[in-house]
């Protein structure tokens, strides 16, 4: 069975440009997460979806970040405009909607903002 798929794997952009990341979760996983991981740190949650509903977006910087999961399957995370401090790895994860369900992670997108 395929794992969590993310694209692109790497992205280099100039500051103030827009960028988008795509994630396709494991089939049957209705919970999807976007995380930010800075170098030497653990993942930090940006947004969590239950199906197409964003149930926790308290740590998403809404002035420049947006996300969608229109059909409750794949999801897109967008940054517009990107800033130098946005350089990081963006991870997508998915899980079943069960208490204590383990999350399965994609390979991440490494973003570099110049």
């Amino acid at each position, binding site marked *: 069975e395929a794992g969590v798929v993310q694209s692109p794997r790497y992205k280099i952009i100039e500051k103030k440009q827009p960028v988008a990341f795509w994630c396709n979760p494991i089939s049957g996983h209705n919970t999807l997460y976007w995380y930010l991981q800075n170098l030497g*740190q653990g993942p930090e949650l940006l947004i969590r979806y239950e199906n197409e509903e964003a149930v926790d977006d308290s740590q998403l910087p809404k002035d420049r970040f947006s996300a969608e999961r229109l059909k409750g399957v794949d999801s897109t995370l967008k940054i517009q405009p990107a800033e130098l401090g946005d350089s990081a790895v963006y991870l997508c994860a998915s899980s079943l909607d069960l208490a*204590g369900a383990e*999350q399965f992670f994609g390979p991440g997108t490494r973003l570099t903002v110049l």
Partner: protein
Amino acid sequence: AQKVTQAQTEISVVEKEDVTLDCVYETRDTTYYLFWYKQPPSGELVFLIRRNSFDEQNEISGRYSWNFQKSTSSFNFTITASQVVDSAVYFCALSGTEYNFNKFYFGSGTKLNVKP
């Protein structure tokens, strides 16, 4: 507050040595889950184990073992006879069932270097 602390930033051992990675957590949930993940240099986080707060039995899986102690709020991970392939960053994580259901709180990770 929900918090996970991994005090060891980096550990270096020689192959075949045993090594223990420490994890201490704080939670106000009575029912919660603890996890360990491995992040090799390739970058993808790999799930290793999950324990729930009602199961304090230690677990052994091959060279890996986990020691969960509620009394000290710790969930430590031991690798016996370490190998070079064990080199990675290891993350401990906590998720609750009452406050912020299923939200994961990760520690800052412990980088393990196993030298041949």
